[in-house]
């Protein structure tokens, strides 16, 4: 069997210069590769951090690029409530038959209740069109596909500046346009409230606006409750469509109701909202891909129509969702005793993060830093925008083997009581 004949670029040039047409040289038994023009995709910036960390031999190295919770020993954490739920599920010996396209109704109801509050009117009146999604990403993607197809007034999604790195590609992949509204103020390392209000006030009527419900990624900067109220008012005035991304409910403050404040406020204020939920962080179910997408509808009848269309969108993507993670979520949320344990687990994680933030600032003070580090404790959730400049970040990495992204973002989950002293010292060294 002859090996397939490949006409290299060099050979083509030679052929061309000799006056022979390339096509004449290629017979029907030869197959040209179709992948010649496939370019190398750009490396993922965040993964790159972890790769570099792995290669470093310094025993004091710290990985502050990780987007997953770590315990005080720097280890992944399987929640006790999750372990219990898994035991219950294992003993139940459930089968592996296809789930419904939109996930099980029990799962969808439970996650909507969690988001909107026990006994909320939306779920009670059947106004939530909720489907299971492939964690946060998949849920966002389904929602974007839905809006792209069915939301007539606008094909533009406004996201905060900055936002999670994957928002833009997801939005574009679904055929919508991306624009931004001011959000983070690098001068204060806090919320640019005035800028946000001004920009949002200028968004064309009825556009889609993406909002991080809590624990903004990557900055950790959240609006205060009063600020949310004002945002709600201007969003209402402009008739914008709020699409909430809630990836950290419970993980931000340690309280699931507090963290859902913005979502629930908007409901009270009469907005029609969409919501993407993730259970990757707050239940530590990262790889099991448990999430949900919800559209709040104006009637039960509308909910049915919207549900039918969501299924039409899911079917050609992956047909029906993976159940393992969703079964764990449902088991936890539907058993009061387990739910209580989970609420404790998620508070434990949030508290450790909050404690680490406090310790970073304390240690910086101890080091003698005269700079204002209040933003570190003002910010909330897994991530923290330190305010460090790229050259300072480079020094942290090169001189201290501390790995973080160029924008100065750190994952507080990577900080432990064992390394916080070293970290504070390093930060002080590059900023003094």
């Amino acid at each position, binding site marked *: 069997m002859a090996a397939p004949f490949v006409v290299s670029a060099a050979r083509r040039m030679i052929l061309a210069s000799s006056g022979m047409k390339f096509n004449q040289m290629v017979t029907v038994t030869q197959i040209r*590769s179709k992948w010649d023009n496939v370019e190398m995709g750009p490396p993922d910036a965040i993964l790159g951090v972890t790769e570099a960390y792995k290669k470093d031999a310094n025993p004091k190295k710290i990985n502050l690029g990780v987007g997953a919770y770590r315990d005080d020993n720097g280890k992944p954490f399987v929640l006790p409530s999750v372990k219990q739920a898994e035991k219950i599920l294992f003993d139940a010996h459930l089968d592996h038959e296809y789930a419904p*396209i939109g996930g099980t109704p029990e799962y969808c109801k439970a996650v909507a209740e969690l988001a909107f509050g026990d006994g909320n009117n939306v779920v009670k009146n059947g106004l939530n069109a909720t489907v299971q999604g492939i*964690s946060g990403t998949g849920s966002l993607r389904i929602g974007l596909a839905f809006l792209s197809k069915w939301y007539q*007034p606008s094909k533009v999604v406004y996201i905060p500046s900055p936002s999670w790195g994957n928002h833009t*590609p997801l939005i574009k992949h679904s055929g919508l346009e991306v624009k931004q509204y001011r959000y983070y103020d690098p001068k204060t390392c806090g919320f640019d409230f005035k800028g946000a209000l001004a920009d949002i006030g200028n968004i064309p009527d009825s556009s889609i606006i993406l909002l991080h419900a809590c624990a903004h990624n990557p900055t950790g900067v959240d609006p205060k409750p009063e600020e949310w109220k004002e945002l709600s008012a201007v969003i209402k005035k402009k008739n914008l469509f709020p699409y909430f991304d809630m990836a950290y409910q419970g993980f931000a403050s340690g309280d699931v109701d507090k963290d859902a404040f913005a979502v629930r406020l908007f409901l009270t204020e009469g907005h029609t909202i969409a919501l993407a939920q993730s259970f990757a962080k707050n239940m530590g179910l990262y790889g099991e891909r448990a999430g949900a997408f919800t559209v709040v509808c104006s009637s039960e009848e509308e909910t049915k129509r919207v549900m039918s269309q969501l299924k039409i969108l899911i079917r050609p993507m992956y047909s*029906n969702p993976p159940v393992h993670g969703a079964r764990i979520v449902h088991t936890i949320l539907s058993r009061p005793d387990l739910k209580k344990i989970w609420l404790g687990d998620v508070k434990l994680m949030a508290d450790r993060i909050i404690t680490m933030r406090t310790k970073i600032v304390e240690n910086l003070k101890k080091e003698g830093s005269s700079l204002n580090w209040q933003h570190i404790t003002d910010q909330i959730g897994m991530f923290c925008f330190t305010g460090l400049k790229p050259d300072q970040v480079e020094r942290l990495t090169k001189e201290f083997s501390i790995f973080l992204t160029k924008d100065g973002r750190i994952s507080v989950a990577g900080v432990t009581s064992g390394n916080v002293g070293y970290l504070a010292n390093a930060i002080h060294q590059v900023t003094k």
Partner: protein
Amino acid sequence: MAAISWFKDVEAAAPIEVFALTAAFNEDTHEKKVNLGVGAYRTEESKPWVLPVVSKVELQLANDKTLNHEYCPVAGIPTLRSAAAKLLLGDNNAAIKESRVDAVQAVGGTGAVRIGMDFLHSRLGYDTIYVSKPTWGNHKGIAKSLLYKNIEEYRYWNNEKKSLDFENLLEDLRNAPEKSVILLQAEGHTPTGTDPTHDQWKKIAAVIKEKRLFPFFDCAYQGFSSGDLDKDAWSVRYFVEQGFELLAAQSFSKNFGLYNERVGQLLFVVQKSEYLPKVRSQFEIIVRETWSNPPAHGGRIVSTVLNSPELYKEWKETVKTMADRILLMRQLLFEKLKAQGTPGTWDHIVQQTGMFSYTGLSATQSEHLINNYHIYLLRDGRINMCGVTTKNVDYVAAAIHDAVTNVKA
């Protein structure tokens, strides 16, 4: 409150047939109801079956204290990808040895088809795709959602002869424009259960090569057709041997019974190993923009089995068990129909392979079975042979007899 809903013009979509069928079946309280709809294996007791080897591994995983729920890599579990590639192409496959093969884990077979079609359209610029006529109900929908400009069909099923419409198939491929994607079902064709012979595959390959078409294999039933994993992979292996570059979507829903854990992968074979990292990186971007990274649980189960000689052996035998039961049911149904003297020829029931049989029943005849006999099947006459058991085969045969005799096609 918002005055007018944004969604007042959202139309009610027709329910997706195969899932609606299962829903209707579940609600039906008739004692003799039979579900011949969705493609899921059933035991002799008409029950879903968790493969013993899967239970074994689930126990193992449950007791493994070192496991957690961290993210899989975007491309999926490495040990799964390599083992599943070997499963499809063979342990000693030359292309694998030459580092010209890689794969990306996907959310079930559907997810694999999805990212494969996405790549071909968005990265290679292909906008014409051919599927068999008929084909699996979701193939066209996936291409449509990815905005392929031309979704065409190549003739496949000859309804009169109840066999492969081979000459017309070749003609349609010959008329396909260069760079058309040709979606081929590797084994156990859905819905017809009719596969090309080796000789026919060779001729198909020759036309695809000559016309510079792109072969994309959908492999959802490896092991289910003949009961032999290698036999069922013959078509893909032949193409690779012939030097084709191709994509193959693999599903572990059926042959592992892991339907709801969504285990699959998209395999790609390229001409030069240097293309592999580039191609994979593009797939990773597509994955990132669709579901970020694949579900871990199901992938772990399959990876554990495929990478353990003992478990692999047990699994192989299990797949044969399932395939054998189907073959037996085909034989039984065929014999019943013959014994009844049901009009028409029914050889196709035993000649077809895999999970499905294209009975040849018309839409009205199929509806007759649903409404009068509580036997649930797709309106195109497709039945899932797994839904047939020794306990219900008489009932099913009698119903078919009634439909064919008394209901106009």
